[in-house]
């Protein structure tokens, strides 16, 4: 199941999504969290020490490609399976949450 969190900037998406992720993990679910915010703070909200969080690897933009679908809509195409991305680029957060910082994916089209 994929759950997205949306809302106006500053509304509390990061705090709420991080807390939800850890609580779900505590309930025994295998939780994978993706920070797709252009200003990624999910690592800190999940409880990764701030000093460590600023040095975490971010998804390289080469893992995605911008394309146009059959209807002419712009789409992002992942060049690797999401599970492989978590394996290669993910980091472990408290309570067993696996975190991927994907902000560069969001900027794939602008790079």
């Amino acid at each position, binding site marked *: *199941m*994929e*759950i*997205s*969190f*949306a*809302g*106006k*900037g*500053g*509304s*509390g*998406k*990061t*705090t*709420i*999504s*991080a*807390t*939800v*992720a*850890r*609580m*779900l993990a*505590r*309930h*025994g*679910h*295998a*939780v*994978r*969290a*993706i*920070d*797709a*915010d*252009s200003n990624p703070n*999910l690592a*800190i*909200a*999940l*409880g990764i020490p*701030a000093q460590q*969080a600023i040095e975490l690897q971010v998804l390289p933009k080469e893992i*995605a490609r911008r394309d146009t*679908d059959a209807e002419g*809509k*712009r*789409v*992002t*195409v*992942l060049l690797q399976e999401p*599970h492989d991305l978590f394996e290669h680029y993910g980091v472990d957060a*408290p309570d067993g*949450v696996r975190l991927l910082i994907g902000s560069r994916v*969001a900027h794939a*089209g602008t790079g």
Partner: protein
Amino acid sequence: MEAGLELFGRGTPGPSDLLVCVVEPSLWSIQTATRIIELAKELGIPKVAVAANKIRDELDIEWIREALLPFEVEVAAAVPYDSGVSLADRKMKSLLDIAPESEAANAIASLVDYIEAQLHPAPTVAPAAGNGHAEPGAVETDDKGCPWVVDKY
């Protein structure tokens, strides 16, 4: 487009199963939320829920409910304004590590109950609120059963 919507126009890979729209009691937040809800429907996201946040009193939550009434979305949780959240933010720590017993953390636990109810649509015995004993076996079937939490739009 205002903050919070920019990714919608770009076409992210595949719609989510559930979109949680975080709304605070401000007109700007409601306006952003209404656009998010409409776009979520266009994107084919099957379920949209609202998490009201920074709620100070009954009037705040009633106002949000009323403003979003035409959109037929469930308000899955009302998270109070909580000094524990500000403290966690300032200390750059997790809310669960700074204020695990805070009212905000308790309210978010009820959002987790709501999400787990979506994971297990019709449990014969509902898990007790708060302790969240998920039925073993219901989650680990395959990778598609795993919750993916995306702090996204």
